């Protein structure tokens, strides 16, 4: 019987910090795998600066063999924007959770997006404040039971889930790339991440990808339920797809010319 080979790690991953520290079944690892493969494919390991937020994303502070800055909670977009402005040759990636991006750090994201800053934001939406124990986040879904909403999120009292990519696409100018992918479709998610980096490299504008991802620890779900949640339930509120795509817009313009 042949032994199946271990799946290879992306070249840009830092072997010394593996195995990584995320829980088994966590979405962060797979999103970062997509990112690592994209960095390899684009050959940009020497130019990437990776910024991670506070939240479970902070566990990736030494995840890659790229210059990495772990920032303050909610401050990753401004920090990466600053680095990009100081050295535009670098390719800056701000990595954060839904709490970091849509609650405490929303001011940073909104203003960077409105200015069309040439950075990439990769936001992992797992519908909870995972690191702190599964409290309600802006992306908790109506009826979803979480630590601070034990009877389920009451939309009347606490609103509906934040629609990040929809908001970002409304406030960015031409040249912005905005998409929502899911770890339930890794190939597609990876292609979105790749375009978000290419878009930055071409200097077109703000690039934003939200990734729907699992948190079995705080959802308190087994493998089957975890997958069902990310694949079936989350897209009921979070529509997967590209919201703004300068590459398509360019193609269309060429065809119409």
């Amino acid at each position: 019987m042949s032994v199946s080979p271990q799946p290879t790690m992306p070249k840009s991953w830092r072997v010394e910090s593996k195995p990584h520290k995320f829980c088994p079944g966590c979405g962060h690892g797979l999103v970062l795998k997509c990112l690592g493969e994209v960095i390899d494919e684009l050959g940009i390991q020497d130019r990437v600066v990776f910024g991670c937020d506070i939240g479970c994303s902070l566990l990736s502070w030494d995840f890659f063999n790229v210059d990495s800055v772990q920032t303050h909670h909610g401050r990753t977009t401004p920090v990466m924007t600053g680095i990009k402005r100081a050295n535009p040759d670098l390719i800056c990636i701000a990595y954060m959770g839904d709490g970091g991006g849509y609650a405490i750090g929303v001011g940073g994201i909104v203003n960077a997006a409105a200015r069309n800053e040439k950075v990439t934001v990769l936001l992992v939406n797992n519908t909870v404040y995972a690191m702190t124990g599964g409290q309600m986040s802006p992306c908790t879904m109506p009826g979803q039971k979480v630590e601070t909403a034990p009877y389920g999120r009451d939309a009347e009292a606490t609103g509906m889930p934040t629609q990040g990519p929809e908001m970002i696409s409304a406030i960015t100018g031409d040249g912005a790339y905005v998409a929502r992918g899911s770890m339930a479709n890794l190939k597609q998610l990876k292609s979105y991440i790749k375009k978000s980096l290419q878009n930055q490299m071409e200097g077109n504008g703000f690039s934003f990808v939200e990734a729907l991802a699992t948190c079995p620890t705080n959802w308190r779900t087994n493998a089957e339920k975890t997958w069902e949640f990310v694949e079936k339930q989350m897209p009921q509120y979070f529509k997967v797809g590209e919201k703004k795509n300068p590459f398509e817009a360019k193609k269309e313009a060429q065809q119409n010319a």
Partner: protein
Amino acid sequence: MAEAMRLPTVTIIQQRGGPSTATVIYSQQEVTLTTYGGNGEGMRIVYSTSNHQELFDYTIKAFNVAWKYRFPTFVLGDGYQAKMRESVTLYDPDEKGVEYVAPEAYVGKPGTPGVDREPGLYRNTYNTEEELFEVLQQHFADFNKMTPEIIEYDQEATDDADVIVIGHGVVFRGVRDAVKELRAEGLKVGYFRPITLRPFPAEQLKAIATGNRKLLIAESAEGQLAKLVKDAIYGCTAEIVPYFRPGLGITTEQIVAKVKEVL
């Protein structure tokens, strides 16, 4: 974050009245915030300026010191310094022979991380208490080693003084003029002005906080400078006399009158 990562930041603070939005004109009520803001155990360098020329000079110095020692550095002014006009000589630091401490990129150095060099990995979160403890010990040690190299203060007529007036920032201007006036009248009065509020010139002040002298602390706050002074001179015998006017300016005449009252 700058404290945790030893980022060479320079911040210029022009203090306003508080708490909250309060007044926009003047105060010295952001001394505690600037020197010990945050959780209070982050190390910082704070210069308190008293005029426009110093604002210019110390801003240049702040950049150099921040790069040399890698602690966040502050230039602390106030609403008067931010808004009033007075003469100042702007100059090219090169022509004055000011040497620049060379800055250094934290990220994006030549080569591929993990291949040609180690990646720059910067963090401000630690997994264990022991890890943090060790990092902090290094910060404290570096700060203590630096302290004698950067301490700045100004002191006059203290040798035989019965009263030493202590003031910083724009208040020091009134303090200096008052001491001149009082000395001209033959009164034994001197002054001490801390320029670095952090690190504080503790040893220097301790050396004169002796006998039954009075230290008159004049500040436009309810004892924020006084707190730094008390901390610095713990164990000394001199008596502390407060002259606190939170959010209000302090004139030469007021200091002269107060000194005469306590002499």
